């Protein structure tokens, strides 16, 4: 067991856990942040996606000790009701979620992607950016639409609400 510190969603946290415990399990079990999900557990599906220093990564393959002192953002950190992010609002408005298991990971990936660009992305660009996130329900059409909607809203109302 080791005492490991992180900054999760803007808050400093200290967790006592084995250093080889996957970060995803620390987030879910030790910190009660259950938005990030485990699905494949080997970096193929993206359900566990979180941001470390604004880069999207699979939290199931980062060990707790490797994430020490890192700045981590989960879907809860992107936005929580009633203060949802424009991406989350767009996913609701476009109906871009069905069972919801993959949604937090996709929101986090979309957040990293949209923060890095300043235009409304093409379908191709979105497919590349979200290539690491699988959804077995929606067929992706509405997800892609929601990301485009979010991008156009971000451009038309820059930083007013947030």
């Amino acid at each position, binding site marked *: 067991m080791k005492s490991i510190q992180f900054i999760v969603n803007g808050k400093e946290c200290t967790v006592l856990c084995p250093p080889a415990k996957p970060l995803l399990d620390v987030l879910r079990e030790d910190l009660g942040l259950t938005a990030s999900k485990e699905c494949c*557990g080997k970096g193929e599906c993206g359900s566990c996606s979180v941001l470390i220093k604004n880069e999207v990564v699979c939290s199931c393959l980062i*060990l707790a000790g490797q994430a020490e002192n890192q700045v981590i953002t989960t879907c809860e950190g992107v936005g929580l009701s009633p203060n949802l992010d424009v991406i989350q609002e767009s996913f609701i408005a476009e109906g871009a979620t069905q069972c919801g298991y993959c949604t937090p990971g996709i929101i986090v990936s979309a957040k990293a992607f949209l923060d890095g660009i300043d235009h409304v992305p093409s379908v191709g660009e979105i497919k590349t950016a979200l*290539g690491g996130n699988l959804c077995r329900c929606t067929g992706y059409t509405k997800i892609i639409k929601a990301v485009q909607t979010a991008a156009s809203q971000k451009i038309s109302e820059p930083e007013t609400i947030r």
Partner: protein
Amino acid sequence: MLVSEIDMITPSSLPECLMQLSKEGRIHRLIAGGTDAAVRMKEGKWRPEIWINIKNLHELRYIEESEDCIYIGPLTTHTDIIHSPLLQRKADVLVDAAREVGATQMQNMGTIGGNIGTASPAGDTLPALYVLGARLELTSLSTKRIIPIEEFILGPGRTVLKENEMITKILIKPQKPNEIGIFQKLGPRKAQSISIVNVAISLTLDQDLKCREGKIAFGSVAPTIIRARKCESMLPLGTLNDELIRNIAKIAWKEVMPITDGRATATYRRDMASALLERGLYRLIRRWNNH
């Protein structure tokens, strides 16, 4: 050994890391991006007593050029490679290959040193490194050696790396202005897939599409990456027209030595190796004409 029993050491410098690697009487392993190491830990294949965590050893994460050589730190991520203007200009085939690794998450986490050390026959950056004439610096506490990547990889997952050594530098030859490369991959889907066949091509071209010299390396069609020497020897035979390209692609069918496994049959791999090379050469010429 349970996952909960594994300890972790995070060295703060390369010398400290080499010191840890040289310690005997315990089972330890390096872990960087974790895209292979953490998966193997979960599968029960790798359960060291201690992980030597080098994920944030920033002194090994760089891309530099000096005196006709490009130096890449082993902890450089695939994303770093994709965004490097230097590599885009002088190692286009490596940038191409890094783009085909997994998807965004894997590109952000995975490192080039890890891709080399894992020595998978399907590793996407490896054929690109073969055609760029990559050499690797292997360092231990008391030794340092530089060897070509062809001599580093012995077979699937097997390398000449000793227990106390690690890859500390990747050296590649920068492409000249008349050199152009491309990486082509066939997987079950576009993102997040393991290559069924992949190929890296690098050509030195004259104005009239005559190839002065070329290198071709295939992945996933043999126990290690292989150079297609017969195909390479045909490249300078004339202008790269339809006839020559098709003939070279035919030779590729014979030159690769694939096996049948869960991902594809040997025959399918031969057909696809030939098709990917043909497609790659056509796309390369189109890219050359457009630039």
